[in-house]
């Protein structure tokens, strides 16, 4: 499966056992990407990490 990095447009080869909602790193730009669909393979930037007080 081939998908495109939405950040740098690199073509990324996804392993056959990839599941939806997996987070991967783009090997080209390092952006963290979420697999939002397998049909067709589609990637989106993973949600920002927020900061929170507590514990």
């Amino acid at each position, binding site marked *: 499966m081939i998908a495109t990095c939405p950040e740098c447009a690199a073509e990324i080869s996804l392993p056959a056992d990839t599941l939806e909602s997996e987070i991967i790193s783009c090997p080209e730009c390092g952006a963290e990407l979420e697999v939002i669909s397998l049909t067709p393979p589609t990637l989106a930037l993973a949600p920002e*990490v*927020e900061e*929170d007080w507590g514990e």
Partner: protein
Amino acid sequence: MDIDEVNFLTAMLRIPSVSGQEAEVANFLVAQMHGFGWETYVDPSGSAIGHLGDSGPLIVLLGHIDTVPGNIPVRIEGDLLYGRGSVDAKGPFATFVMAARRAQLAGTLRCRIALVGATEEEAASSRGAHYAKDQYAPQFCVIGEPSGWDRITLGYKGRLLAHYYYEQDAAHSAGEERAAPEHMTDFWAAVQSLCAKHNQGHTRLFEQMIPSLRRVASGGDGMSDWVEATIGIRLPEGVNPAALADELEAMAMPATLRCEGGCPAFRSPRTTPLVSAFMRSIRKAGGQPGFLHKTGTADMNVVGPAWGCPIVAYGPGNSQLDHTPNEHISISEYRTAIAILSDVLSQVG
């Protein structure tokens, strides 16, 4: 024998368990989990342990069962369950127990689970987590802390506690000699300055050194005057607590400084199958998953570096209510979090 999810948490909340006094709630948990047919015991650190599952990878569900002081009458008002520890962190640990039970009853469990109801997280000792660290080598770990049902915590800042003490011969307040408390305020100002210098150019709280003056006391008996204070510093990644303690001790002289609870910051990657499982489960429940880095410190800081496995913190509740007199949890959120974690446990394996 099974127990209703809300009754289970309510019963936990009715048992006071300030740090160091967790025996009664630990015994309650062991009895409840034993009733599910699980292998249970109280370990040497006082933590309540439950084991279930025969095969598959080991996942440790570790949540603390001690609380900070403060009696909050246990009561239900509409959807809200009030009580000390409802958010931090009996609610999350009750979620763990109930989710494991639900997955087991559904026959969907594909992993072995070790539930650790850990002691003294709210103390500098983190006794339960330190003991557990050497008992398990899990493939996955979830720490029980409030993230909210649809969010996942990936990291916590580090921490250092510094206890300052200074004593000098008594002197007249109209004299040249500076009062003992003034020496302490000089040191506090120096700590603030040290942190401000580190924080230049760092806009994210997770990257900053954040000091807090936790306690001050002073006095005298006519022969000598003294001052003591406790300062806490929340540490970003890259700051070594032991090295910082050495630096602070040098700054404090001639006062004495005793540091404890040194714990480096810890951050887990999110490119793991555990995070993916949570994301799928949260989406399945209609949520939009979010990620958190916390300004506080938790048992993740203790076991995360030692175990080196995929790890997150998860649990229902709003951490803004931690340690407050208004601590309460949404019952519907608690039930949703149980469903989500049960689904995660069915995916891990």
